[in-house]
């Protein structure tokens, strides 16, 4: 990849290179995981990284019967409120990212029509267990977010989200000592059940590990 010492020129260069692939629309990235694991906090950390690279971004949130996650992002000031769309699943949100993702596909298409230079759509969806997965008709790449306070046995429970996601994110690493979670064990067992696919450790409150998550997205679907 061509790079330059001037960061502002670099971000322009990144954006220009990625627009070469825009004819087929923006990349769609799924962010799933149990309620409270830190998905929205992860998005709040990712937005500035993509903005600094010059990538136009939008977010779709999926909630059961409210628009809480969308409101939180709209009020954060991190991106214009019209770039955040809420989907109310009316049932466990995993049903609208896997079994019938039509609502989310329509929301993504709406954003793509509205923002013609859109490059990344982040699609957030909770799920009350480890079985939540994304349809590859909906997303190009997806990650599953768990956190240390759920217990360090989560990776070895081998739910489909743990095993099949493109990236496993273990969040709240700072809480591990307070809840008796062994991070090394989580990493070891996560690697064992994921057949070589990557995992990342994050603290979404401080931003630790977020760049690594962004790099996985950049490398795999933004191609730079």
């Amino acid at each position, binding site marked *: 990849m061509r790079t330059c010492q001037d960061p502002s020129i670099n971000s322009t260069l990144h954006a220009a290179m990625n627009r070469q692939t825009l004819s*087929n*629309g923006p990349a769609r990235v799924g962010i799933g995981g149990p309620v409270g694991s830190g998905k929205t906090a992860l998005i709040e950390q990712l937005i500035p990284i993509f903005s600094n690279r010059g990538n136009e971004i939008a977010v779709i949130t999926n909630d059961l019967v409210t628009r809480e996650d969308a409101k939180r992002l709209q009020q954060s000031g991190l991106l214009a409120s019209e770039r955040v769309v809420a989907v109310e699943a009316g049932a466990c949100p995993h049903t609208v990212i896997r079994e019938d993702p039509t609502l989310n596909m329509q929301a993504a298409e709406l954003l793509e029509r509205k923002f013609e230079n859109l490059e990344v759509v982040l699609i957030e969806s909770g799920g009350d267990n480890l079985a939540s997965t994304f349809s*590859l008709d909906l997303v*190009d790449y997806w990650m599953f977010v768990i956190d240390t306070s759920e217990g360090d046995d989560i990776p070895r429970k081998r739910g489909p989200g743990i*095993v099949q996601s493109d990236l496993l994110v273990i969040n709240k690493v700072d809480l591990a000592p307070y809840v008796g979670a062994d991070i090394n064990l989580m990493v070891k067992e996560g690697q064992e059940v994921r057949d070589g696919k990557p995992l990342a450790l994050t603290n979404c409150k401080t931003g630790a590990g977020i760049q690594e998550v962004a790099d996985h997205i950049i490398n795999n679907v933004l*191609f730079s």
Partner: protein
Amino acid sequence: MIQITDVLGHSHDSKLSSRLHDLSHQNKVEYIVLDHPNLQRRRFRVKTDRGTDCAISISRETRLTNGAVLLLESDRAIVVKMSKDRWLSLKPNDIPSAIELGYFAGNMHWRVKFKDECLHIALESPEDIYLDRLKDFFIQGKIVRANHD
């Protein structure tokens, strides 16, 4: 890195097959090997069997298939090859066990097919993950492993 934004056709298409045939004799056809779930992807990064780095970004209306031709140049072609599915084949010992197994497989969102009184589960993760989930069925004698053709 090669950027691929379209599917040129299928390897059996008359317009493409003769050129592919010639290139294959020159050992210049590279393959992107994908399993069934990954064939659904439209935008991803992958290496060919020769190590060529490919950034694929095709339209949402396009589907990759076994034999899809992604690149055809004078000195190189890139073709999609679907890897053979791996199956876990199970034979229920009686009808109640068959019903319970079918319900369980559906609840686990496993991709299955039925043939010769057996349930065949497509393995999209290591086999021991499936066997662990089915442990009680085996212990209780409700199912036995069978061969898959």
